[in-house]
């Protein structure tokens, strides 16, 4: 069961957001956090999305192992020069902290994977904390699929990291900075000396990456995609530097939308997958085409919908087009979070169009444990 309810926003929601340091509750003067609606699920529905998330993660890990063993970089669109750093990272079992599956789901049939945000997922703080704070006010007797905060704090000590970890994002990206600040919050509570630095301020001293005090960076969480890191000038030093990167380089195997084609090849007909290929016209029906390394719904071409953006030269994947379900004229995507590889909660973003973009709103959810 999945129902969209209309709610009256709390009169003081902006003040509450500010108090919690939620700096991007409004983007360009429009609400990004939207508590004028919320989605209700049954407990059985929550169990279903949790199980589907775990199952898709299992498929994805198997796909990674296959890709590395069988040298499937072509289907993923990963250049040959980058492949060794990716495969070494996988073979070294470098742990992942987090990721988010974007699922198409109407609360009835099996949730289906639209894409895996495995490298730089955002919308985390609002999923972990902001929607919970809403729940305690608006639906105090209901529950929420959300143990993200606790899971993050529990995950950090299992990452095998040095005591000091740097956290980097683009200097002027408010949402990204909010995300790394929240992750620093959880890391700090796990006993890590969590230092913030702008990605533009990272230094290279000829032997190692450094922070602004010239201290070596032994481990870094970077909210900056691997394909951008490797394209940048300092990308040339990554293989030689003794730095742990979070997310690790093997997450490129999952963040490439070529993954969708690889999954369908390995697990054809799986109920949690949609048919997908690297070539157009093979799904047997309407298709949505996505750049292999596109972001935030940019450069998408779907029946009746196209979006602009800078991506697409790197190749595309063609996925069977299954339009998002529509509730009250809004199209929700379920963002299902994995922390250290296990499901720990969902966040919902909805849009007035079937294409979820960076302007799509975040709406809270709840369920009734005995429903």
């Amino acid at each position, binding site marked *: 069961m999945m129902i969209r309810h209309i709610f009256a926003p709390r009169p003081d929601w902006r003040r509450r957001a500010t108090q919690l340091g939620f700096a991007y509750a409004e983007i360009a003067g429009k609400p990004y956090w939207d508590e004028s609606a919320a989605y209700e699920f049954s407990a059985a529905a929550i169990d279903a999305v949790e199980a589907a998330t775990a199952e898709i993660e299992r498929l994805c890990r198997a796909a990674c192992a296959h890709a590395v063993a069988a040298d499937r970089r072509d289907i993923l669109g990963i*250049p040959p020069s980058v492949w060794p750093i990716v495969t070494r990272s996988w073979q070294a079992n470098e742990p992942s902290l987090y990721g988010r599956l974007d699922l198409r789901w109407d609360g009835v049939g099996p949730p289906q994977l639209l894409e895996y945000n495995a490298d730089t997922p955002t919308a985390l703080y609002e999923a972990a904390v902001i929607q919970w704070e809403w729940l305690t006010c608006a639906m105090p007797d209901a*529950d929420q699929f959300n143990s993200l905060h606790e899971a993050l704090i529990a995950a950090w000590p299992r990452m095998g990291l040095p005591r000091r970890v740097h956290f980097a994002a683009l200097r002027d990206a408010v949402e990204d900075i909010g995300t790394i600040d929240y992750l620093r919050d959880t890391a700090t*509570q796990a006993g890590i000396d969590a230092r913030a630095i702008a990605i533009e301020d990272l230094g290279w001293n000829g032997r190692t990456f450094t922070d602004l005090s010239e201290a070596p960076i032994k481990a870094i969480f970077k909210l900056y995609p691997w394909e951008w*890191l490797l394209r940048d000038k300092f990308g040339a030093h990554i293989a030689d530097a003794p730095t742990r990167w979070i997310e690790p380089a093997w997450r490129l195997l999952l963040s490439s939308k070529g993954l969708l084609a690889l999954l369908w090849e390995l697990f054809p007909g799986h109920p949690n997958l949609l048919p997908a290929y690297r070539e157009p016209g093979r799904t047997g029906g309407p298709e949505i085409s996505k750049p292999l390394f596109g972001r935030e719904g940019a450069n998408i071409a779907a029946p009746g919908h196209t979006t602009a953006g800078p991506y697409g030269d790197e190749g595309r994947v063609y996925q069977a087009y299954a339009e998002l379900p529509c509730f009250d004229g809004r199209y929700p995507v379920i963002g299902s979070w994995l922390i250290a*590889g296990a499901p720990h909660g969902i966040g919902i973003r909805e849009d007035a169009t079937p294409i979820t973009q960076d302007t799509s709103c975040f709406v809270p959810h709840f369920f009734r444990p005995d429903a």
Partner: protein
Amino acid sequence: MRRPRTITLVIMGGGLATLGAVALGATSGRPCQPPPAQPGAPPANNTACQHTSGWGGYVGSGRSGSSSDASTSARGGFGASGGAHAGE
């Protein structure tokens, strides 16, 4: 009944905020579980990275932007790619 849950923040919102010791109990606790084993083999040989072009232009043995003086790092070597934000 909702499960017990307290969220403490030490950085966000200026830090030291605590949401709730709100009330409690439920199926969705979804308590933290140990991470699944991440399949893999022993580390591979340290294959040298070569290059092509674009983001495939990554060169494992490159020295672009490097500094020979360890006390003064070169900076500005990351952040040139992409757009206004990097999240997804």
